[in-house]
């Protein structure tokens, strides 16, 4: 049985009042178009509630613009048109406890949700458990401070509802796995012993480490993501390509270009630090086991500014 539909607080209805910007008004023609296209009336939403949901979704994300920027009407329209409005209406109706919306959700999403959980966990038992747990939360069985909490309220229509469900499942599985697994410092265990016959002087090794750090940290976000996904996570080119929405040949080309440019940049950095070109090339041939460069730490140290700010706030 679905949760009862009631005219409760704003949190219960999934339509927070007063959160939208006061000067933000949805264009009437656009609202009509979106309203007719999403079948929201079927889930018991009124036209005003629907508009409010859209405005909340827009203002919460500042229409996809940086925080200090004010969106123009055109940018607002583009943002609204890019939303998965039908999925958003269904999610909010489910959060409200609409019976028909839940029936539809069950018919459409229950089986794919279970299949996705099984694919993510790699186990039928674990997958079903994970899916049931998320489903129970979506159904609003978890209560905090006397109020039913539904994770569907955090869905704002960017991307599909099924994609959101899959990503939520993956988040929970990864977090659970990281919490419960006994992490062992593989790098330390598997670290090879330094070669006693190493011919590279310690000073040159130190300069090489500095040059590598500078070269890697100067690469842009996409190249660092490629390096991390390919060399650290050992994902295939196909998997990386699917995440980025490009062909695997493109990933291969970009990866090749990135490693080539890093190599050139390391040479430049070595020369800038006082080494001759020949000495720099010889230093590039140093045994990697002599280096104390941890690519994982190196990439993690170059934390992105956007999320650093969010973490600080």
């Amino acid at each position: 049985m679905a949760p009862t539909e009631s005219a409760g607080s704003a949190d219960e209805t999934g339509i927070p009042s007063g959160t939208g910007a006061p000067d933000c008004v949805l264009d009437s023609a656009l609202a009509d178009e979106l309203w007719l296209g999403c079948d929201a009336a079927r889930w018991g939403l009124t036209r005003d509630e629907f508009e409010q949901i859209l405005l909340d979704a827009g203002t919460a994300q500042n229409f996809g613009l940086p925080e200090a920027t004010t969106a123009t009407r055109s940018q607002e329209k583009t943002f609204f048109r890019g939303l998965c409005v039908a999925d958003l209406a269904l999610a909010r109706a489910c959060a409200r406890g609409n019976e028909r919306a839940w029936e539809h959700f069950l018919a459409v999403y229950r089986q794919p949700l279970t299949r996705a959980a099984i694919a993510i966990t790699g186990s039928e038992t674990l997958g079903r458990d994970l899916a049931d747990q998320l489903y129970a939360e979506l159904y609003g069985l978890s209560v905090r401070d006397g109020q039913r909490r539904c994770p569907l309220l955090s869905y704002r229509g960017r991307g599909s509802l099924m994609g959101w469900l899959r990503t939520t499942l993956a988040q929970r599985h990864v977090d659970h796995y990281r919490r419960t697994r006994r992490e062992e410092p593989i790098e330390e265990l598997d670290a090879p012993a330094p070669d006693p016959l190493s011919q590279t002087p310690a000073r040159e090794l130190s300069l090489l480490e500095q040059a590598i750090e500078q070269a890697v940290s100067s690469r842009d976000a996409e190249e660092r993501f490629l390096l991390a996904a390919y060399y650290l996570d050992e994902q295939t080119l196909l998997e990386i390509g699917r995440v980025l929405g490009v062909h695997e040949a493109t990933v291969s080309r970009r990866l090749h270009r990135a490693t080539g440019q890093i190599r050139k940049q390391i040479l430049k950095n070595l020369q800038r630090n006082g080494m001759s070109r020949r000495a720099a090339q010889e230093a590039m041939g140093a045994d990697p086991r002599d280096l104390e460069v941890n690519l994982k730490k190196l990439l993690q140290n170059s934390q992105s500014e956007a999320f650093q700010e969010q973490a600080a706030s």
Partner: protein
Amino acid sequence: MTATSQHGFHPDAESLSAFSEQALNERERMEVLAHLAVCGRCRQVVALAREAADAGEVTAAARLRKTNAPDSWWKQWRLVWVPTAVVAAFAAASISVYIERSDRHGPDTKIAEQNPDAECNAAFGAHANGASKGRASGCRRSRDPALAYGEARALRRTRATARAGAARSCCANAVRVRSPRAQSPSTWSCASAGSHARAATDVSRR
């Protein structure tokens, strides 16, 4: 771009999902990408979600194939044998028509068309020799399966004789037809002689 409180400063599920579905604008995409470059946990989340999406697509495609599959072997073969039967029937009809026409317009009939008199003579001759009733009545090759081989040979001989007779009669006709033509120069010469006589008479009158 918002970060969820649920997972600290990681992008929320919606941002990662929208990133994976290419639904973010360029600025948001670069923000998520910069985070993914340094966060193994979110890379793992995105990779797993993508893997699940691919598995779901494969399952959906398999289900679609199963739905579109025919119900029985009969439906599969129906697409093959119906056109085949139609083509076979057409071919059979064409062959029978061809045989029928070749019977009507065979080599003997051609001769008969070219020399109707000869054919009639041949028919008459065949009738006179009593070789074949069918041949005499219809001027056609008999299809009687009981026709003996000797009868067939006799028929061929009779036909050859009839051809020879037809050729002779044709020659005779040709002679008969040619004779008026042969007389025409003399007629012309008589006429011309008459004209000369008339001219001579005119001259004498003058």
